[in-house]
């Protein structure tokens, strides 16, 4: 196995990881501030991807498509928050699971009804298409590099937003003491809608960015959602930093596991058996990682200790 392949796979893992981060950050923020588990977060990812595909087809502009993705997801998020989600904050997790599961059904079937069951395609903009040559002579797709950069930039911005701005102070206060900040005159329901829309916009952005390298279709959001849950379990609920570390860990484990485990198995097994056993184990690797973290630290790497 060549070092070039390894570097490529590490980059792939990073790219996957930062996209997971965009999903996990919104989820963990929403959970941290509102105490809500939102299964419909994957639907917002899908909404972003569809909006991007639609706008890109109409205008030909990838940038417009990204803006549209974030706007559509934020709008959908805000509407859903106003109509349904805000009735769930006081309810138990079971109700939240059920109601947001219902939202998935409505979003998924509604999208299927509007756009049909066939996948749409979102093209990588010409300026970002094609490979670049990295130091060491590695050819790597430019677009994926841009994804890594964009994801890390969003992570940094989010860190600044939470850490340095007035909104961020309110968000952090909301995590700690709901009644207190309401008593201080902050309009808590507006804050909640805003946080939900922010999380939705991140999911929509991720959907659009990933939509350009995969197909855009109904049901694309939920597998990512579940991986984002794994990320949160590993990182610790409510922690943006935990989400970033968890996302990169999951991204790298998944990508590298798929490459290295079959190779590793070939050392002790016949090649065909090794490939199949390695693939099976690789498909389970991130969950095994999650299990290990759970045994070691049940509240996640950066979670508050219970």
């Amino acid at each position, binding site marked *: 196995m060549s070092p070039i392949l390894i570097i490529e796979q590490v980059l792939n893992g990073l790219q996957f990881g930062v996209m997971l981060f965009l999903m996990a950050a919104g989820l963990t923020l929403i*959970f941290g501030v509102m105490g809500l*588990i939102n299964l419909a977060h994957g639907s917002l990812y899908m909404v972003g991807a569809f909006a991007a595909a639609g706008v890109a087809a109409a205008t030909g502009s990838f940038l417009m498509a990204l803006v549209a993705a974030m706007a559509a997801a934020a709008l959908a998020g805000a509407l859903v928050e106003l109509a*349904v989600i805000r*009735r*769930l904050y006081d*309810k*138990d*997790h*079971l*109700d939240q*699971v*059920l*109601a947001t*599961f*219902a*939202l*998935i*059904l*409505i979003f*998924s*079937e*509604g999208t*299927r*009804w509007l756009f049909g069951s066939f996948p749409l395609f979102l093209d990588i903009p010409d300026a970002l298409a094609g490979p670049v040559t990295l130091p060491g002579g590695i050819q790597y797709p430019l677009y994926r590099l841009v994804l890594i950069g964009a994801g890390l930039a969003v992570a940094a911005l989010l860190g600044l937003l939470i850490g340095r701005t007035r909104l961020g102070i309110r968000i952090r206060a909301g995590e700690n003491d709901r009644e207190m900040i309401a008593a201080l005159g902050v309009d808590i329901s507006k804050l909640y809608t805003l946080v939900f829309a922010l999380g939705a916009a991140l999911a929509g952005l991720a959907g659009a960015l990933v939509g350009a390298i995969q197909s855009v279709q109904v049901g694309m959001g*939920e*597998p990512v959602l*579940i991986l984002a*849950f*794994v990320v*949160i*379990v590993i990182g610790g*609920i409510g922690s943006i930093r935990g989400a970033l570390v968890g996302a990169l860990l999951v991204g790298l484990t998944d990508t590298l596991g798929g490459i290295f485990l079959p190779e590793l198995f070939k050392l002790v097994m016949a090649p065909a058996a090794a490939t*199949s056993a390695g*693939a*099976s184990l*690789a*498909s*389970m690797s991130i*969950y095994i990682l*999650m*299990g290990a973290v*759970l*045994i070691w630290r*049940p*509240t996640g790497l950066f979670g508050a200790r219970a």
Partner: protein
Amino acid sequence: MTRERLFNALLLAGLVLVPLAAQAADEPFTITLATRAVILALAAVGLNIALGLGGLVSLGHAAFFGIGGYAMGILASHAQSYAPLAEWPILIEGTKSMPVIWLVAILASGLAALVIGALSLRTSGVYFIMITLAFGQMFFFFTISWAAYGGEDGLSIYVRNGFPGLNTLAPLPFYGLCLVLLCAALWLFDRLAKSPFGLALGAARQVPARVAAVGLDPTRLRLVAFVISGAITGLAGALFADLNRFVSPAMLSWQMSGEIMVLVILGGVGRLFGPVAGAVVYVTLEHLLGGITEFWHIFLGLILLGIVLFARGGIVGLVAGRGGGHD
């Protein structure tokens, strides 16, 4: 007789009479629908033990459902190809015998529930939900990559498995078997709920600190409930695969977990016949609405939202009033 008991009796009578009437009217499809409802109800009774009695919001029960399904698929496919599962250290042959398949399904899914439960129960609340969902997904991806048993395409068997003394190929006897198993599970649920174990489990759901303070370990109680729960759902999975003569990773998908949970909540969490009412209504809706529009899940979603926001206690709660179950 309370209203809930009357409702339960009527529901049970319907489950006995409707397929008999369908048989008389020569409408085997209705029997197949009823079989589907009864099997899904059995899966949901399993979940109701964890969710209703133990308060464990498991979004990973499709894993147990699927493991039961694959137990059937693997044993039956080996039997039909006459290739033993293993020759060493002991010879293990496939089988087409339902009782053996059921036993294997129960043991395998119970074992999986033991492992998943032991890890997931280190946490609680929203962590538990996410972790069970994730472990469910792990089994899903494992079956997809498991090329020896069909991978993504799943496994078909040619002929339904057999039960001593019954013609399981005919719809009605197979339905009868499923109904008997459902009744057995309901009996077990009722017994468990009233037993010392059920009392302690219910208390562990409400006040875990108290349970520990009287010398009981809440986590251990929950783990036992989770294992029983997973084993029953696994048995349902074996029947479901036998009904379709097919098992595929779809049985382990997160949607399946969501569906099983929906059945419980549609009917009424913690209610003895909640899962049965939920499954009957679900299959009926699926059949009626599915005939009108292929987008019937939109309506299911709206109904669910309505239940969560306005009608806690599900169908049984609506019929019988509050009390008996719990929120």
